[in-house]
């Protein structure tokens, strides 16, 4: 077993832990106890799956990409998380956490968001379960994801633009943590990825396990075996953790694709920020560096601790792709399959395209973590309206 429960101290190997101010330690302990209790309660698990099915639209389909596969010489299967309610895999985690928050008697959710997908998902869950919701979003991201800001407002959430630091995802996490330090008695921090202090990395992966479970079953049905490669994009790494968890004990090669400007695992320097020991982009003295990527959702200088662990033990690999490769892959999927992917998810495809020669005739399962509607404005600027051929 590779992706097992973390140690009592919340460690995956040497990574993970609980590096948050003392004020939040009891909240993390309470959350861990509540999660263990809830996940062992069949009624909770049943309600979680019922909402994901009746409301979220699960199971998400597995799509065989005939035209793309022919063009690349690689048999590409897409796990269609883009077809979930709210347009990405994020809904799995927020439904789990919102139900848990309600069970713990908390009436308010705070969240950070980069591209806005997790913010929209959290706002959605808050509306569904009648909870108050505040979302922190870097100013830079508010500008480039205007539509998602409005979506969150429509859903009844308050969005606060964060103007400190690099004004992107990492600063939104800081601000959400500061909020939580002050409001911990009635507030649950609905963290959006497999990062942060224990139990978040483990809990968020568990809520996304459904992606890997479904995909495993769907692959067995369609290709009668597990795929040769399972690939997903990695910022914090939640969609990758979800799909990897269904294949970690199989023969499948696991590939997490980072943006070149945010390759925390790729650089391999250990560090501690946002509650966890993991790999972290930092300068020579330890100041956290700003990630730079075309996709706001991957603009994160750290990575979930379990990915650091999977890399350190050699179970998963973490290559990176450039913004240019991502833009090309984005267009390719639009043209060949009629699917507009999120820029985040296009990172995974960019790697497949680049490695097509080496992957010839292999079966590649790609987690299409989100849809690209939110990125259309940005791509209009990148490509120009008349230059999409």
């Amino acid at each position, binding site marked *: 077993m590779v992706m097992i429960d973390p140690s009592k101290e919340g460690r995956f190997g040497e990574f993970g832990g*609980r590096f948050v101010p*003392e*004020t939040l330690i009891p909240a993390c302990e309470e959350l861990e106890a509540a999660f263990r209790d809830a996940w062992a309660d069949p009624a909770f698990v049943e309600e979680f799956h019922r909402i994901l099915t009746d409301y979220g639209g699960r199971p998400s389909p597995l799509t065989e990409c005939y035209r793309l596969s022919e063009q690349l010489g690689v048999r590409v299967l897409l796990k269609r998380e883009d077809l979930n309610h709210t347009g990405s895999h994020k809904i799995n985690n927020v439904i789990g956490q919102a139900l848990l928050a309600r069970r713990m008697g908390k009436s308010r959710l705070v969240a950070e968001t980069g591209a806005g997908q997790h913010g929209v998902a959290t706002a959605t869950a808050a509306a569904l379960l009648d909870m108050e919701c505040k979302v922190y979003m870097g100013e830079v991201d508010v500008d480039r994801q205007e539509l998602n800001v409005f979506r969150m407002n429509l859903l009844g959430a308050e969005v606060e633009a964060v103007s400190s630091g690099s004004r992107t995802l990492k600063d939104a996490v800081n601000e959400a943590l500061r909020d939580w330090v002050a409001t911990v008695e009635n507030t649950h921090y609905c963290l959006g990825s497999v990062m942060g202090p224990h139990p978040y990395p483990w809990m968020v992966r568990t809520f996304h396990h459904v992606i890997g479970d479904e995909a495993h079953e769907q692959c067995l049905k369609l290709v009668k075996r597990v795929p040769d490669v399972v690939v997903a994009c990695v910022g914090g790494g939640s969609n990758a953790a979800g799909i990897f968890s269904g294949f970690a004990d199989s023969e499948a090669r696991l590939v997490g694709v980072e943006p070149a400007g945010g390759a925390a695992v790729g650089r391999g320097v250990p560090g501690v920020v946002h509650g966890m020991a993991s790999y972290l982009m930092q300068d020579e003295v330890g100041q956290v560096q700003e990630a730079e990527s075309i996709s706001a959702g991957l603009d994160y200088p750290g990575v979930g601790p379990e990915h650091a662990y999977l890399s350190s033990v050699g179970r998963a690999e973490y290559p990176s792709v450039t913004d240019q490769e991502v833009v090309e892959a984005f267009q390719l999927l639009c043209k060949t399959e009629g699917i507009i992917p999120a820029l985040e998810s296009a990172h995974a495809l960019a790697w497949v395209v680049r490695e097509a020669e080496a992957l010839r005739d292999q079966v590649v399962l790609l987690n299409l973590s989100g849809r690209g509607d939110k990125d259309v404005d940005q791509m209009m600027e990148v490509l120009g309206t008349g230059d999409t051929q």
Partner: protein
Amino acid sequence: MSSNSDVGRMERSLRDRRDEGAKLLVVYVTGGFEGWEAAVETAAAAGADAIEIGIPFSDPVMDGPVIQAASEIALGSGATPASVLAAVPHLDTGIPHAVMTYYNLAHNPGHERFASTLADSGVDAAILPDLPFVESGPWREAAGEAGVETILLAAPTTPDDRLPELCAASSGFVYAVGLLGVTGERSTLASTATEIAKRCKSVTDKPVLTGVGIGSPEQAVEASEVADGVIIGSAVVRQLLDGHGADGVGELVASYRTALDAG
């Protein structure tokens, strides 16, 4: 732990002042911010019992807007851990110095190296707010080896069953976090400030100082009715941000000193 040979300069000095009947005043200044050395010296002259020097970090999650702003400005003007620490031996204060920074700056060079750099720079103690008691063992060991005290934070949310252990592990003093929240002045003293100080005092004879949320000399006096003293930070740094320089800091610290001495 109570034998005097185990006690570092910070704790010894604060215990002595407490034994003299004084209420303790620790003053935080953001290192690397223009004029910070003069501000530290003025604060000492105006009656601070110890100084906390902030080493600016890119992601200060425990800090409110004032210290965040000062940290960003200091980083923007090129402050580094090395540049801040290099100035410490030249500070003419005559009182103990702690650094307050975030754990990655200790993790990056490694515990032993960071601890010995602190000791070599004449720093007596370290406060790492994102390194809570439960994660602090390896660092405290390395710091102890180098002769650096580790001041731990006790929060209003810290459960009773962990508080005695936490206070026992803290050295220098126990930092009682006055409220649920990040650093910054508040218009009234939170009720949590007296409660946490009282809880700490009941399980330790180490100096217990209340910090986070102290917004006026009156609040400092109120907090010190239970605690052995207070830590002031944002109010001090605001003087620097507003351009009042070392003189502004000196006047502010003197007003706290006077109020605390008058009780």
